[in-house]
């Protein structure tokens, strides 16, 4: 094989290497921000276009039966969310003091953003949306979809884009509490990008399939009452310090499109 443009010499490789080091350093110093913004703004329309184009494709690929099932599942999810909201309101009436403060602070402000890209990393579950610090988004801000279902939180933000680590990612965790029994608390983590698991639940607490788990409000920037998922299975072993539960997330990551990111500090 003949090389088209000659072999790279050692000096050239060193030049390329030092240039790359310089690029990375300049990135972290913020010097390259205008160029990066230009590159991102150039590519964002492609991301929006592919998201809009591929979402309907995913829908029409389903058979009629699976489409109906999807609609019913969506309806169940909506009812669960509605139920969660009603129970949350009921809880607010009972725990007046706490909930009065809660309702006062729960004047959410959010930014609607469009999904433009998904994680290309094989083992990561994050999405990129087309709003950033210029829209008021901050690190750790929770991202929700219709009905107050939390899908994750912002882990990185630049001027024009934000990256949201989905709650189903292994590295994601939220403090959760059961709506049915507010003393039942635990740590909700992602499970292989597909579902959620809730651990560190005290053995003395009661939890069962069908319970709705919401954020407890302990996490910084994440308000109480955002729906994390529904309990599918409880794993209770005698002798163990804690019990755990498998949760079904109430959103479908492959159908995310418009996402709301809360911009007010709770």
């Amino acid at each position, binding site marked *: 094989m003949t*090389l088209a443009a000659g072999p*790279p010499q050692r000096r050239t490789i060193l030049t390329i290497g030092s240039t790359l080091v310089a*690029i990375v350093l300049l990135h972290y110093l913020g010097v390259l921000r205008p160029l990066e913004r230009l*590159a991102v703004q150039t*590519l964002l329309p492609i991301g929006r276009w592919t998201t809009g184009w*591929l979402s309907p494709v995913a829908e029409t690929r389903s058979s009629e039966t699976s489409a109906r099932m999807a609609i019913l599942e969506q309806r169940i999810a909506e009812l669960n969310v509605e139920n969660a909201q009603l129970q949350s309101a009921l809880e607010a009436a009972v725990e007046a003091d706490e909930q009065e403060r809660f309702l006062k602070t729960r004047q959410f402000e959010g930014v609607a953003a469009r999904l433009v*890209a998904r994680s*290309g990393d094989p083992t990561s579950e994050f999405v990129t949306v087309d709003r950033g610090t210029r829209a008021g988004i901050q690190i750790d801000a929770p991202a929700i979809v219709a009905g107050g279902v939390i899908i994750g939180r912002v882990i990185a933000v630049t001027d024009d884009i934000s990256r949201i680590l989905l709650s189903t990612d292994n590295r994601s965790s939220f403090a959760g509490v059961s709506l049915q029994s507010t003393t039942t608390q635990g740590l909700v983590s992602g499970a292989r990008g597909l579902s959620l698991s809730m651990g560190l639940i005290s053995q003395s607490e009661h939890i069962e399939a069908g319970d709705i788990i919401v954020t407890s409000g302990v996490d910084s920037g994440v308000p109480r009452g955002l729906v994390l998922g529904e309990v599918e299975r409880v794993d209770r072993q005698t002798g163990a310090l804690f019990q755990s539960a498998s949760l079904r997330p109430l959103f479908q990551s492959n159908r995310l499109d418009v996402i709301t990111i809360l911009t007010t500090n709770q």
Partner: protein
Amino acid sequence: MPRFILIGILVVALLASLFVTPHLQPLLLKPSLFLPALLLILLLGDTWLALRSAAVGGVVMDLFSAGPFGAYVFAYVTTVVVTRWVFRTKITNRSLLALLSLTGIGSILASLLVMVNSHLGRLIDPRALSVSPTSSWVAVTVTDAFRTMALAVLVYWMIRLFGRRYSSLTAHEF
């Protein structure tokens, strides 16, 4: 093969890796088409195009990655340099088997480097996500390598086809 066609292939592969394949997730995988394109263009003989593309494509991948900035660009450039070195000094015959070996090695090397870089990069940017060598990572890496090799077979056939048509095609020795 005219260089503008190769550049076109690289651009399409990069955009598809960023914006198309992660949406489709065939078999729950998120295949990167950019790396196979990069490796195959390197093995077609256009080292400079491969190096420049690795640098530009890596920066773009880093812009849309949640990992530390630089993880992809260093991984891709290093992969191009190392693969080319192996190509010239270790696996010097130009059989299909050699092509398959090189693309497989390059693909696995790139995945390893992204993982190592993501961990090293967290020393600078602790909030960035890192990639860990979990069982799913191994599965995806090995699958990626096999897919790249499968693409190499297709390209091998194209090389032989175009080799008769373009005298300027540099990989005629395959």
